[in-house]
């Protein structure tokens, strides 16, 4: 009698254990997949929180000092606009894209890699700088502006 009770209990215990372990494995997998996704999302938000304001500075502001294009080494805060927002100055764009990559990163306040280009609306690249070998995590912001009276597309891609 005692043996039969013991056998039934062992079977129940075995089934219960298998279910329990299966459930634990499922929950752990669910948890780690979610954590990985959340980490990806948080990193993406961080990239975005940098990329959009930097693109704003570039198309809307003249930079600091405002006439930095006369002496590119004096550039402290990036800005490509002339007297008016969304109207870029050719000399500023040329000097910015000619900057040393690491210097440009520092001026833009970026810890990650960046790729920057300006193209006309047909997609012809007019100016380009930065690291075009994109990492897995990437934020791309497209802005529109006037450059020498032509409408252009400016794209800033931050990745890494």
């Amino acid at each position, binding site marked *: 009698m005692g043996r039969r009770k013991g056998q039934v209990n062992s079977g129940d215990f075995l089934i219960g254990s298998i279910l329990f372990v299966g459930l634990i494995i499922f929950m752990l997998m669910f948890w780690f997949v979610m954590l990985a996704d*959340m980490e990806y999302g948080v990193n993406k938000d961080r990239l*975005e929180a940098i990329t*959009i304001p930097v693109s704003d500075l570039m198309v809307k502001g003249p930079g600091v000092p405002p006439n930095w294009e006369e002496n590119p080494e004096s550039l402290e805060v990036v800005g490509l606009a002339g007297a008016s*927002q*969304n*109207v870029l100055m050719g000399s500023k764009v040329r000097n910015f894209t000619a900057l040393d990559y690491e210097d440009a990163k520092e001026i833009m306040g970026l810890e990650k890699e960046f790729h920057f280009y300006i193209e006309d609306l*047909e997609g012809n690249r007019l100016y380009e700088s930065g690291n075009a070998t994109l990492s897995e995590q990437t934020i*791309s912001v497209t802005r529109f502006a006037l450059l020498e009276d032509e*409408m252009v597309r400016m794209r800033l891609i931050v990745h890494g």
Partner: protein
Amino acid sequence: MGSKGFVMTLDASLAVIIMAIFLLSFSFFYAQIGEDTSSLMAAEKQANDLLIVMDKNGTLATLDPEAIDGNMDLALHEGFSKYLEVEYYNYSNGFYLAGNFSVGSNYTESEKTVFAQREFLVFGNQSIKHYGIARLRLWAK
């Protein structure tokens, strides 16, 4: 025996319910956090830029729906639908609607729509001819 079985079933049910609540709550908050707002913020910037640039290069002031539509199509080649409403007014002891037009796809209420507005002036004979308002909606295709 029956009483024991009942207690164990109740325990198991409670455990399953608590776990289900935990998983559902976590999934819900995860979905909230995971919502991709980056494309919306970037799209809003694009919509504003587009109106500013079309104002500054005089495209809006043409009041020509085809020219405006063509310009926007050229600029927004990536995955956006658009709907632009333009109203223009004359001023004579108050503003009077002189005309309006719209271009783009039929606007559909979408959660992922961004909106931008810009006031602009139309000049003629070296004076202000019309006061215009452009309202642009962009949403992902």
